[in-house]
């Protein structure tokens, strides 16, 4: 790994989240300064801020992009107890000339009575849907029935999780064999032995989400949670950020046929557990093929985890701050390639040896 570029984010307060769009050509940042910024990558690879606006009246925790099939759409959630949906309007010629774009608020979702801690769009095959969770322990699922009219969102489901919610993850599987599913993590830190990860599944018959599983072994506060892309597997993989990094597999068992329609039961295994962060783990996220998991912890590191062809999970890389501030205001472009390179030690040793050699 190597740092290819650095971009002065220019937020007036702490940044809480960064988010790539589907194609990796745009990104969004959100901050305690109550704003969201959108950045676009130009043909030569430079990043330019094309929009920056006040989105909430409190810290903005998360910002996330909808699938581009639905246009250019963002969702944000905040300490101000709301989540909001934003759409980019193809600008007036003035804006375009200045390289700026215009985002309008399409809706404010005001159902929560506490801080909205996470917002995630559902997999696109479910339509334009999003889920929020909040500190009062409620997961809410909203839908925009008309994708051309983003100002109308209806609250479809309210799931009461009993525990303060910190994070949600949709199961991305589009297989017909898998019902829509959402995992919820709780950062409740009162001393109890309640499961901090719950899994809810949509039941076609009752048209409701119902609790299918709880990860009983996870009793410490959970800060983030992420289903891996499915790759056509019959089972699901779920990563959990708690006091360590954990990776679970959830293998659906035969559906119990009951009068109310069967809920899937799962055989749950923990396939990896890493305490390398030595403390709380705050974020987990999978790459697009679900083959590399990244985690971020109190040790100030991002660690990459990967299974080799023998099902052996290993750390394959670490990103770490060096603690010294960068000078200059808007330094962009390629850093010296040896700086922050995965091969630093290799290259140093090579350069050393080639220098000491006589050139023939």
């Amino acid at each position, binding site marked *: *790994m*190597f*740092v*290819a570029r*650095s971009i*002065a984010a220019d937020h*007036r*307060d*702490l*940044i809480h989240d*960064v988010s*790539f769009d*589907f194609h990796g050509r745009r*990104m969004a*940042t959100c901050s*305690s300064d109550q704003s969201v910024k959108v950045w676009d990558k130009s043909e030569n690879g430079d990043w330019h801020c094309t929009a920056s606006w006040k989105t909430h009246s409190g*810290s903005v925790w998360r910002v996330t992009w909808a699938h*581009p*099939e639905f*246009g*250019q759409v963002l969702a944000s959630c905040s*300490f101000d107890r709301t989540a909001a949906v934003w759409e980019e309007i*193809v600008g007036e010629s003035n804006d375009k000339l200045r390289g700026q774009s215009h985002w309008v608020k399409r809706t404010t979702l005001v159902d929560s009575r506490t801080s909205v801690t996470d917002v995630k769009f559902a997999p696109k095959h479910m339509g334009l849907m999003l889920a929020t969770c909040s500190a009062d322990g409620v997961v809410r699922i909203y839908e925009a029935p008309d994708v051309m009219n983003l100002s109308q969102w209806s609250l479809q489901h309210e799931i009461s999780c009993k525990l303060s919610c910190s994070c949600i993850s949709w199961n991305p599987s589009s297989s017909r064999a898998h019902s829509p599913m959402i995992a919820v993590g709780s950062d409740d830190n009162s001393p109890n032995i309640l499961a901090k990860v719950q899994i809810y599944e949509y039941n076609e018959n009752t048209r409701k989400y119902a609790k299918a599983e709880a990860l009983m072994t996870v009793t410490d506060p959970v*800060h983030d949670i992420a289903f891996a*892309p499915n*790759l*056509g597997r019959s089972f699901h993989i779920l990563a959990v950020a708690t006091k360590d990094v954990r990776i679970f597999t959830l293998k659906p068992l035969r559906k119990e046929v009951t009068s109310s329609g069967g809920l899937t039961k799962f055989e749950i295994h923990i396939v990896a557990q890493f305490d390398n962060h030595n403390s709380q783990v*705050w974020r987990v*996220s*999978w*790459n*697009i093929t679900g083959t590399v998991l*990244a985690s*971020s912890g*109190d040790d*100030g590191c*991002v660690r990459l985890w*990967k299974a*080799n062809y*023998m099902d052996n999970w290993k*750390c*394959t*890389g*670490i*990103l*770490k*701050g060096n603690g*010294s*501030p960068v000078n200059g205001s808007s330094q962009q472009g390629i850093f010296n*390639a040896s700086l922050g390179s995965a*091969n*630093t030690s*290799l*290259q140093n*040793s*090579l*350069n050393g*040896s080639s220098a000491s*050699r006589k050139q*023939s």
Partner: protein
Amino acid sequence: GPGRARAARAGRWVRRRAGRDAGRMGGAGPGAADEHRPVTVVPGAVPRRQLCFAWGPAEVLVCETLFGRAGTGEGAPSTSRVFVVRRDQDIYIQTLRKLFNESHGIFMGLQRSEEELAGKSRKAQLVQVSKNYRSVIRACMEDMHQAAISTRDPALQGQYSTQVSILSAMELIWNLCEILFVEAAAAGPLLLRLLDWVRLHVCDVDSMVREVLSSENPSKHKLFWNVVDIFVLQGRMDEARHLLSKEASANPTSMNMYKILDDLMKKMPVPSLGNTQTLTELELKWQHWHEECQRYLQDGTFASNPHMESICKILLGDEDAILEKKELMTTWYHFLVTRLLYSHPTVKPMELRFYAQSSMDLFLGGESSPEPLDMILMAAFEFEMHQVIKECSIVLSNWWFVAHLTDLLDHCKLLQSHNLYFGSNMREFLLLEYASGLFSHHSLWQLGVDYFDHCPQYGRVYLELHIERIPLSTEQKALKVLRICEQRQMHEQVRSICKIMAMKALRNNRLGSALSWSIRAKDAAFATLISDRFLKDYCERGCFSDLDLIDNLGPSMLLSDRLTFLGKYREFHRLYGEKRFPEAARLLLTLMTAHIAPCSFWMTLLTDALPLLEQKEVIFSAEQTYELMRCLEDLTSPNPGSAPFQDDDVETTKVEMLRLALARNLARVIVKEGTVEGS
């Protein structure tokens, strides 16, 4: 050649990288050893802050943050930066593109190659493929070397030199694998191959050879005997004898001694590549020759010349004598091959492991520990193919080498399948990694497609996940991506790409493009929506845009009712414009009576009928006129369940005008039809 000299001081790099990583097997990727994970430093991040991050298709975003702090205004005024981190560095090295591009062709050729070819011809084919891969590595090395000498930037020069030594090490390893695994040379030819391998790759002494040979009087050069020794150690007998003959002619007194040594060197039996002699014959000849050398050594023939005596000892395979020339061999594997040449010329493949281990031990002499390259070569000599690949995965900074080598070995039917937890094998695992890396590059991704195609288990799903992330920056690029998906019947990706493009076009008010993309996506709902926009625009402006598209909808018109209507309605206008009034009139009526037109549009259609009703010629028949009248009444009469007809002044006037025109037309047509029937 000059390429050789620079090329292959191979593997020092890996050796320098040192035993730190050695022995930590099973790393999961290039540069990934177990306890020595590569740390990438993010400059400027403040200690004790945490990092938040986001995955993109090709890059990772990283940014400082503080987790778990509720509320506002707690963070310090932030100068924080967002860092764009890339995973696969080598993919972005311009000079390596040749390696990626040309090896792709070889890879594809190998996948297509005839598995049916049996025995020798199949093996010859595979050896040729292996040689092709190596020549690409060497060509790349040459380019890299040129780049290194033509740049003035020392940092860049350092990077190029690094790449040269990495490529050089790759070629060294590959060549050995080619001899041992692909060609699987048998006793006899095996030694010849190993000699070639050493001659090709041990080039540290080439400059010395050149210096001596190009001097005015080589035999007076202070390094003369060193060069003779180098030739002898590498089994280059003709060259050694040629040099010696120069020395001999300068020393008439010791002419006899030179002649004897020359004769011994000339007579030395060597394995032949053909089938002209059996191993037993060779061993017999060898034994005889060996005894002859022994005799001359013992009777003190060379006693007066320590150089020649030492050469004679080398010919006899004397380990101490050979080891004395350590500096001229530079590596333990050169020592191994020299030792085999003069002691065990008929070494069998399976005996290599023993000689290799002891040669390394003797050569390193406990002074230094083996380094990664040594471990890789040793694993090859031990025929531990899996180990070779694992070690290379740990040490090399890209997946190119392990992916292509493993694929070749698999085609040689040499790999036991190492099952992934999801059942794929090592070949596929490595190819998937390599191709995924290609997909992080803005143009090399196109090569990645073919690699995924040849991964039977997960290739398709990887391709699906990667290809839909290719930025669709232009229509041209979108069409390119689309073609790839269509060729592979990736229906969902085709639909999604078209939908994204349709949405993008619609947002930019390019209705024609939006419509053609949604037709491609077979997205009926979206086609309806766009058709409505077309019709709305028509009502507002009185003309259609994108006539070409709408006129040529053909059968795709049937995708949605509204689109059908749009196409037919435009056809009506065309007929009218061409003054084909009766056809236009018939079509207009059908649009209503067959309920192709949405009710909301009937008023527009009836208004369109007005000019037809007022032509000099009567166009609508009596029956048609009645139908038009019924349509108008259906529209205007209050109808339970349907929206009330807008009853404003303009509409009322329009309705009155229509009624009048219809009545007049009916009168004219009754007269006309009566006349025609009567005549």
